[in-house]
């Protein structure tokens, strides 16, 4: 076990009910939940590894791949949905060759969905890092990644 993980575990007792806070702390340190770390959590909290995985996949906050340099958040709020955000998401997935919740193999992008960015009048929109891209169409999505 590496020292990062050991540090995390030091602040817990290794009880079943601590599972979610432990996973949150692990993710805080690594940016995601590495497989080996989840195995260690399973041993430490005495919870089966399948349950650790079950809990981690239940909550949207946990991720299983390292976060990319650029964080893409596709809004899936009501307004964006009505204006076709599914198509936007699919286009980005196709373009980057990854699925929601994943990171490109080169580590440049990670893709996630969020419930609402808070600018429904600009729907459908996507936030890349801190910048909002508004009134998107699948064609415009292509341009978002063109300059790279």
């Amino acid at each position, binding site marked *: 076990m590496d020292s990062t993980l050991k540090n995390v575990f030091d602040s817990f007792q290794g009880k079943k009910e601590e599972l979610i806070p432990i996973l949150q702390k692990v993710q805080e340190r690594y940016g995601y939940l590495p497989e080996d770390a989840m195995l260690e959590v399973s041993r430490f909290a005495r919870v*089966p590894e399948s349950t650790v995985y079950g809990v981690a*996949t239940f909550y949207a906050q946990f991720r299983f791949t390292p976060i990319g340099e650029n964080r893409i958040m596709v809004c899936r709020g009501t307004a964006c949905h009505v204006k076709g955000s599914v198509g936007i998401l699919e286009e980005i997935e196709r373009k980057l060759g990854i699925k929601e919740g994943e990171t490109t193999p080169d580590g440049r992008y990670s893709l996630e969905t969020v419930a609402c960015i808070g600018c429904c009048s600009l729907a459908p929109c996507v936030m890349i890092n801190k910048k909002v891209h508004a009134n998107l169409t699948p064609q415009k999505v292509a341009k978002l990644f063109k300059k790279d």
Partner: protein
Amino acid sequence: MDTVNIVIDGVDIETGADKTILEAALDHGIYIPHLCYHKDLDPVGICRLCMVEIDGRRLDVSCKTPVREGMRVRTETEEITKIRRVAVELLLANHPTDCLSCSGNTKCELQRIASYIGIDDRRMKSLRRKTVTLPIDTSNPYFDYDPNRCVLCGICVRTCADVVGVSNFDFAYRGYDSLISTFMGKPMIESRCVSCGECVARCPVGALRPKAVPQPAREVRTVCPYCGVGCGIWLGVRGETVIASRGDPDNVVNKGRLCVKGRFGHEFINHPDRLTAPLIKKNGNFEKASWDEALDLVAARFAKCKPDEFAALSSAKCTNEDNYIVQKFTRAVMGTNTVDHCARLCHAPSVAGLAQSFGSGAMTNSIGEIRNADCIFAIGTNTTSAHPVIAYEVKEAVRRGAVLIVANPRRIDLCEYAQIVLHHVPGTDVALLMAMMKVIVDEDLQDDRFIEKRCENFEAFFESLERFDLEFAQKTTGVPKELICEAARSYATRKPGMLLYAMGITQHTHGTDNVLATSNIALLTGNVGLPSTGVNPLRGQNNVQGACDLGALPNVYPGYQKVDRPQIHTKFEEAWGTKLSDKPGITHTEIFDAIHDKTVKVLYEVGENPALSEANANHVYAALEKLDFFVVQDIFLTETARYADVVLPAASFAEKDGTFTNTERRVQRVRKAINPVGDSKPDWLITCLIAKRMKKHGFDFDNPSQIMEEIASLTPSYGGITYKRLDDRGLQWPCPNTDSEGTPMLHSEFFATVTGKGKFMPLQYKPSYELPDEEYPLILTTERSLYHFHTATMTRKGGLEVLRKCELVEMNPKDAGTLGLKNGETVRVVSRRGEVNATLLVTDISPVGVVSMTFHFAESPTNVLTSDAIDPVAKIPETKVCAVRVERP
């Protein structure tokens, strides 16, 4: 049992007070739709289909609601129908409708519910979501997982967690995306799955389904041929082929549960490699021969053999009747007591040790009592691998709140469920146990009343305890003092306490001492003669208990009656009508030495494979080549059979009638499912045919039932056993007469010793024979894989071979680092006696300084390395400890 009266749909029902409404209804033939309920599991009430109306007011799930006196239940109202319809429609909306080609067809609970409620196809279409077809996991050799057919009832999740104790899957994701998943969604074969198929057997739909789907034409009830647990099985037969096996829910031993070998390991029965005709070696090559030719040759050669030149090795895989006939043949026809079998290599110290301390060398208590123990002390047993169904019981006990203490050099699976884990150095069991006993005595935790009333020789034992202080124990065993104390206190105070052990205790040059240490600690704490207590050696082979009971041992007749006791000798001479030798024969290990000395010249080997199982295998190979005449009787041409002059094809367990005696002394019926494959014959019949060709009397049996009659007449502990009585249940010996219902628990009032008292035995710590040194710095210990059995003649014939392909040398990462060796590379393991190549597995399951290997694989014969130094009493070789070095080849 208390009963209550309730009314379900106007029907008056009297039912047990501990039942739920659903159980009461199903017991009385009233159907209530249900999907997540399974009789073996705790109810969870998640499918909501078993909703009923109680007392005309509230609705509740019937699977979780206990019955109450006067309760009035309606299983269907307009409101309930509505709730059920919505739930089922949502399940069915995206469920495949190709029922006819689904393996769940006719057994599917969803089908049954749909037909009960009645489904409107048009409404279904409107509910259908965009179809997402999830990939089917076909990675396991025996079953597939199709998440598209899953109804998320969670029966597999609960089965894996609560029945098997593996927890390989759980619910993952959320909402529409919910699915049953392994950790990280890994394919079954890469997951923690142990392939027992318990989930497959319970899946109410076709999501977890066996790969082989054909239905059997008929089923035959018999006993599993693998380990000593003795699970009841139903063999499924189609034509002349055994195609399936399922657990027998009515068998008290396994209650329907099985492990991977029991459920799927039947592929060997109809395997093309089976021996189908006698073989005679001519000019170094085997040639097929007729039975007449082979039997004439064997009979002629045996007839020329002097008593002391003959030795027989019987088989713990064969039935009681087969073993009885082999020992009778050796004694009555060949005139020698030199008959032994592989118990010599596994539990000879249990027979010798427990006979001294308790008077009877067998499990004192029964498998079914494990779940009610408050403390389980498992030492030297990797129960999960070697006795999987007993491991289910251990885990059940833990689930019910028992303390589990595991003492094992390796971090075996059971450690995960244990509260106290003691990783002692291999071979230091006496030091560990005696130190625990010293703690118990020092802290005054012993059971004084029990010691005074039921035991003897306490003072001598007490004196010998003095040397085992905690400092010495910590230094010798490597276990921290505090842990030794904690384990001692738990075992002494959490009662009833049940001690389980296996080959980690016995396979040592001080194996008998180890066994005596286990009986000492049980006597000291009063953990004998009561339910869920005792000293319980877990026997390895399906019928190793029976082979011992039936006298396939050189010093005793059936029922452990000593050959050198005059009245016993006379009894058997009269019964068998012939002169018998009163000189005990030589043991398994000694037979091979005697072959080297040219004192034993003829060997008759029935269903055993010492070329792989005997310690110091090179010594065995050389011996087998020196024999004047060597007959092997087996179902396959084993590594040993290749040395034979004549090979006689035997019928497997599925092709003969008989009985097996399991580890808890339960004699159970083995039934013929198919005719013997090819020209093979049952073992008892082959031996009888040889005897008859030698013109000997007493071998005119038409069927094994007649043999059992003779056994019962000569063996006091089997006196009350007849095939008729065994028809619907097993009987645990001692069962002295036909009025006896058998004895599930030994020593409840008296011990079986001469004085009737349990005997404490003073002990000394003796180090293992061969300790690591500079040239051979590591300890090699042998172990078992869950997926193979013994020398793997039966298990390397199909899917089990996929689950475990080759020998692995398990080594701690620290040792691998020091030696510069990498996981997965081929390494050479060298001992003073030989060398073996195998694949390295770097794992922290193995402690520093210890490597482990199984002995299942003929291409990496581990026993070439092991030491044949033997225990002076039990003559068992020390296969658990020898010194080796590991290097790049």
